[in-house]
C-alpha cells in the first residue's frame, strides 16, 4: 500500500513540475573556431587582464582602483570619492545604464556575446572543460559512462582547475575592497580576516556555480537585461539572423549536386549551428530571447558554407530591415542614425557633460562647522564672549595641504590660538576652535558669522562657511 501511495505522489509531483518549469537539459556546446570566436577570446583576455591586473596597479603610493570600505573612500586613479560624493557614483551608474541602452539599440547583444562576465567566465570554464574532458562528444560519453577510476580522476581534475580559477577570481574581487597587498600578506602568512575569507569564498563559489554549473540558465532565468532588451531593439538593431529565404527548404545533399535545380536552399541541415550554441537553441527558428548573440553559430555555419563552396553568411549579423530588403552593409550602417539612437545619444551626452563638469569643479576642500552644543557660550576675561566650534576640514585633494583659518562677521571677532593647520592628502582633520567676540558687539541670540578656510599652496582652494555665534 505504501508503494502505491508513494508512486502516486511521485508521479503527481512529476507532472506538476513539468507544467510549471521546463526541465533543463544539460547542454554540451561543441567548441568552434572562427572569426567571431577569436574576437571573443580577444575580449576575454582584455577584460580579464584588466580585472585581474588593475588591482595591482599602484598610483600615488596607493592602489590605483580601490573601493576602501573601511575608510569609506573610493579611489579611481586620480579621483577620490568620499561618502559626500555618492551622487557622482549614482550618476556613473546611470551613465553606464544609458550607454548600454544606446549600445544595445545599435549593436544588439554584443555585450552579452563578448564582454559580459557570465560569458567570459563560461568561456574560460568551457575551455578548461575541453582541455580536461575533451570536446562535446567526449564529454557526453564521459557523463554517460559508469563511475570508475578514470571518470572520477577526470572530474576531480576539472573541478579542481575550476575551483582554482574561481578562488583567484574571488581573491581579486575582494582585493578591490581591501588593499590587495595587505590581503596577499594575510594569505601568505595564513592569517586571513574572517570576513575577507568569507567573501573570497562567496565570490569564488558564485563564479564556480555560475560559470561551471548554471551557465546559460543565468542568461535565461536570472538576467534582467536579457528580458528587457526587446524594449531597446528596433528593426534596425544588429542581430544574429538566419537567412530564411536563402536557406530553405533545408536538406542534406551531396557536394556536387545541383541543389538549386532540385529546389533546395543553402542550409544543408547539418545541425552544427545547434550543437555549438551555448544556450541550446536553433537560430533557424528565428530571433529568440535566449540567443545571447555569441555568433558561435555564424562561425560554425561559415565553416560548412566554405566546405560546400557556398557563399558565407547564411547565418550572419544583420538587421530585420536588412534581411527583408536585401540590404548590404552600407545600408545597414546608414540606418544607424535614426531617431531612437539620436535621442539616446543626446541624453547620454548631456549626462556625461554634466558629470565631467561636476568632476572638474569638485571642490578640493570641504569644511563642516558644528557649534559645540555641550559647552554653552561663556564669558572669558575682559567680558568677551566665547563660543566653541568643531571644524571638520576635509582635504579631498591628493596632496598635503596647509590651510589658514579666519573668521569674520562681527566687529572685533577673533580666533583664539593657532590659525594654521596642515592636513595630509585625502584625510579629514577635526579640530576645536575658540571664537571670541567683545561683549558689546553681538546681539543677544544667534548672530551669523563666517569661517574662511584657505589653502596656502593653492589660492583658489578656499571655503566660506556660515555659522552662528550665540550671545547669552
Amino acid at each position, binding site marked *: 500500500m505504501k508503494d502505491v*501511495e508513494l508512486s502516486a505522489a511521485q508521479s503527481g509531483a512529476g507532472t*506538476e513540475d513539468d507544467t*510549471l518549469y521546463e526541465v*533543463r537539459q544539460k547542454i554540451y556546446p561543441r567548441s568552434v573556431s572562427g572569426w567571431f570566436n577569436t574576437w571573443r577570446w580577444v575580449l576575454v583576455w582584455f577584460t580579464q587582464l584588466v580585472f585581474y591586473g588593475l588591482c595591482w596597479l599602484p598610483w600615488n603610493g596607493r592602489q590605483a582602483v580601490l573601493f576602501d*570600505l573601511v575608510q*569609506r573612500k573610493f579611489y579611481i586613479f586620480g579621483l577620490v570619492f568620499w*561618502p559626500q560624493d*555618492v551622487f557622482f557614483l549614482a550618476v556613473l551608474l546611470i551613465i553606464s545604464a544609458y550607454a548600454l541602452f544606446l549600445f544595445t539599440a545599435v549593436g544588439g547583444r554584443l555585450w552579452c556575446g563578448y564582454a559580459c562576465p557570465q560569458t567570459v567566465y563560461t568561456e574560460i570554464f568551457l575551455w578548461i572543460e575541453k582541455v580536461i574532458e575533451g570536446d562535446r562528444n567526449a564529454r557526453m560519453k564521459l557523463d554517460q559512462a559508469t563511475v570508475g577510476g578514470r571518470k572520477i580522476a577526470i572530474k576531480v581534475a576539472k573541478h579542481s582547475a575550476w575551483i582554482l580559477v574561481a578562488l583567484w577570481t574571488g581573491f581579486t574581487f575582494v582585493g578591490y575592497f581591501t588593499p590587495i597587498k595587505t590581503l596577499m600578506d594575510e594569505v601568505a602568512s595564513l592569517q586571513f*580576516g574572517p570576513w575577507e575569507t568569507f567573501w573570497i569564498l562567496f565570490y569564488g563559489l558564485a563564479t564556480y556555480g555560475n560559470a561551471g554549473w548554471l551557465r546559460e540558465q543565468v542568461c535565461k532565468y536570472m538576467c534582467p537585461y536579457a528580458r528587457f532588451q526587446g524594449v531597446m531593439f528596433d528593426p534596425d538593431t544588429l542581430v544574429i539572423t538566419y537567412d530564411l529565404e536563402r536557406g530553405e527548404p533545408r536538406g542534406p545533399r551531396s557536394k556536387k549536386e545541383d541543389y538549386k535545380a532540385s529546389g533546395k536552399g543553402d542550409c544543408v541541415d547539418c545541425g552544427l549551428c545547434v550543437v555549438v550554441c551555448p544556450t541550446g537553441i536553433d537560430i533557424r527558428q528565428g530571433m529568440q530571447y535566449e540567443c545571447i548573440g555569441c555568433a558561435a553559430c555564424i562561425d560554425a555555419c561559415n565553416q560548412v558554407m566554405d566546405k560546400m563552396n557556398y557563399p558565407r553568411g547564411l547565418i550572419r549579423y544583420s538587421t530585420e530591415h536588412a534581411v527583408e530588403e536585401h540590404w548590404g552593409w552600407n545600408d545597414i550602417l546608414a540606418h544607424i542614425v535614426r531617431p531612437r539612437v539620436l535621442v539616446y545619444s543626446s541624453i547620454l551626452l548631456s549626462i556625461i557633460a554634466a558629470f565631467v563638469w561636476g568632476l572638474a569643479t569638485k571642490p578640493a576642500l570641504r569644511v563642516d562647522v558644528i557649534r559645540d552644543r555641550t559647552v554653552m557660550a561663556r564669558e572669558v576675561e575682559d567680558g568677551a564672549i566665547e563660543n566653541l566650534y568643531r571644524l571638520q576640514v576635509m582635504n579631498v585633494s591628493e596632496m598635503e595641504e596647509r590651510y589658514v583659518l579666519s573668521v569674520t562677521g562681527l566687529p572685533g571677532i577673533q580666533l583664539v590660538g593657532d590659525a594654521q593647520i596642515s592636513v595630509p592628502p585625502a584625510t579629514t582633520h577635526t579640530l576645536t576652535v575658540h571664537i571670541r567676540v567683545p561683549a558689546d558687539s553681538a546681539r543677544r541670540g544667534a548672530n551669523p558669522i563666517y569661517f574662511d578656510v584657505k589653502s596656502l599652496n593653492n589660492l583658489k582652494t578656499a571655503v566660506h562657511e556660515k555659522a552662528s555665534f550665540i550671545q547669552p
Partner: protein
Amino acid sequence: MQRWIWILFPSFAVACLAEFVFFSVIDPQQLYLFGEPVNYSPIATYSICFFGFWLVGMASTVFSVFLQRSPEEINRRQHRSIGHAHRKTVLH
C-alpha cells in the same frame, strides 16, 4: 532549480542595491544596536547588514513564489491529499 533562482537571485540583486544606498548615507560606525554603538569591524557590519537585506528580500520572494501558484496546481494538490485520505480509509 528555477524556483531556487527566483528566490535567491532577485533578492540578492535588490540586497546589493539596498546595501549601496543604505551605506552611502550611513556610516557603519554610527549605527546603534539595542542602544549600544555597534562595535564590530566595518567589514563585519557591512556583511551582516547585507545578509539582513538579502534575508528580507528572500522572505518576500518566497511569499511571492508561494502565492504565484496557479489555481489548477492548488486544486490538484488538494485533490491529491484528499484522494490519499480517501484511499486510506477504503483500504483500512
